[in-house]
């Protein structure tokens, strides 16, 4: 019958389109591993360029993430729980870095904290230089990676049933207590997911860092910058480093998946899946 025929077509269309997508996304990654014998992959981990970059990357990113967590969480909670004029604008502000070309972010950071930047004078007065130092890397990472965390955090906080918060309050527990005893535990899954995404994004930061922090080995040369630098020197090394990074990012993402797997309502998804098991 025509109906089932059309249904068949739809299923096939879905399938083909997905196949193309997966192929396109998988190929570049596969290609890298094809080029890199596992031996090299391990060998690279002792290449000083890689180790230095890895150390710089981890150090700067960890510091940046601490800031993101400590400052981003309250910000997200505020935006999730308060409705006030200009809120949409602030949310936009928080998300802007996500859609801003990293290079522009770098320029912006220079314009703000650089020698000729808005705060340049003030900072020089305090004997502080930020551009092209590790602080600059931290700034760049924090600026570019924070939106991913804050957005997820807002969503996670908004997902907490308002009645549970209300219940806690009527049970004599104030806003602070309620936040730590009810809101945080219930949002933790989402927060973790956001944090993982943000961390991964930060590890990959390139444009803003090269603009604002330059690329100085052992100081500001993070893994992505090292890749870019090595690219000119030895393509095989570059491939190997890339492979290392893919493995790291992939691991991060999978852990994220696990952290959030429980979130989508099981029943719905299950029954939906059954529902469509014909189409």
């Amino acid at each position, binding site marked *: 019958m025509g109906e089932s025929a059309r249904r068949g077509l739809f299923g096939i269309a879905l399938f083909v389109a997905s196949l193309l997508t997966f192929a396109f996304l998988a190929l570049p990654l596969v290609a890298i591993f094809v080029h890199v014998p596992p031996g090299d992959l391990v060998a690279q981990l002792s290449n000083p360029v890689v180790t230095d970059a890895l150390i710089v990357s981890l150090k700067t990113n960890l*510091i940046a993430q601490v800031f993101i967590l400590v400052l981003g969480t309250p910000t997200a909670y505020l935006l999730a729980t308060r409705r006030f004029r200009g809120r949409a604008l602030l949310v936009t502000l928080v998300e802007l870095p996500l859609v801003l070309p990293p290079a522009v972010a770098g320029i912006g950071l*220079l314009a703000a904290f*650089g*020698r*000729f930047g808005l705060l*340049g004078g003030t*900072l020089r007065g*305090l*004997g*502080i*230089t*930020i*551009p*092209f*130092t*590790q*602080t600059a890397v*931290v*700034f760049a990472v924090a600026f570019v990676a924070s939106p991913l965390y804050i957005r997820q955090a807002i969503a996670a906080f908004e997902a907490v049933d308002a009645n549970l918060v209300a219940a806690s309050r009527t049970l004599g527990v104030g806003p602070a207590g309620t936040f730590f005893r009810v809101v945080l535990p219930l949002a933790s899954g989402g927060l973790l997911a956001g944090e993982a995404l943000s961390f991964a994004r930060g590890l990959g930061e390139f444009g803003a860092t090269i603009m604002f922090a*330059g*690329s*100085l*080995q*052992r*100081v*500001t*040369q993070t893994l992505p910058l090292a890749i870019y*630098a090595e*690219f*000119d*020197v030895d*393509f095989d090394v570059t491939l190997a480093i890339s492979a290392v990074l893919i493995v790291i990012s992939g691991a991060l993402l999978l852990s994220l998946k696990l952290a959030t797997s429980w979130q989508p309502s099981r029943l719905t998804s299950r029954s939906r899946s059954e529902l469509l098991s014909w189409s």
Partner: protein
Amino acid sequence: GGAAARQAGADGTRARVTVYAAASLTDVFPTIDPTAKYSFAGSNTLAAQITQGAPADVFASANMTIPNQLNAKNLVSKPIVFTRNALVVVVPTSNPANVKTVYDLKKPGTKLVVAGPTVPVGAYTVQVLRNMALSSVLQNVVSRETDVREVLAKVALGEADAGFVYSTDARTVPGKVKVLRLPAWAQPKVQYGISIVSASQNKAAARAFVNRVLGRAGQKRMIAAGFLQRVKPKGK
């Protein structure tokens, strides 16, 4: 913030000098002073960063123009020529476009990669071609890279059919590229200038580094790496 900043400079202050050097010096400088911290990139990029207050102690440029401009702004000391170099054409060993001489670059469809016009090597490339009345070749340019090593990489990968780099760069990827020499008469005056950054916290170490480069040992290594005598030997 400041803490991290100072401390970042700090691992330098103990004689650890920070050197911003042209990409073409990537391989040779570490052999002259392995202890220094290097940032290799297009001289123009480095200049821009120094202008923006990058904590460099020494600036080694692949030409004299850029350091002179900075010097005019009192950002760096008067540059001293510390070596010279020559321009060559490199093609992948597979030589897909079958480029035998620089004149073959005129063949339409040849994928030519050069450095951006603000990058020293990019400027030199334009000069050479003008000298040889080959400016039309530039119509075959498929990409203007941000420094000489990018040019080399694209060719070494075989993605590009040919590229203009320094003879010293060509030697760093043996077996990956074939070198096509350019006639001496067409060569531009490729002089590298080194100077000390005025804002350096670390002038002593900076001077020490410059002297090392200019010193006999330093120069030996430069020449070993394929660079040319600081000053043209008065031709006989």
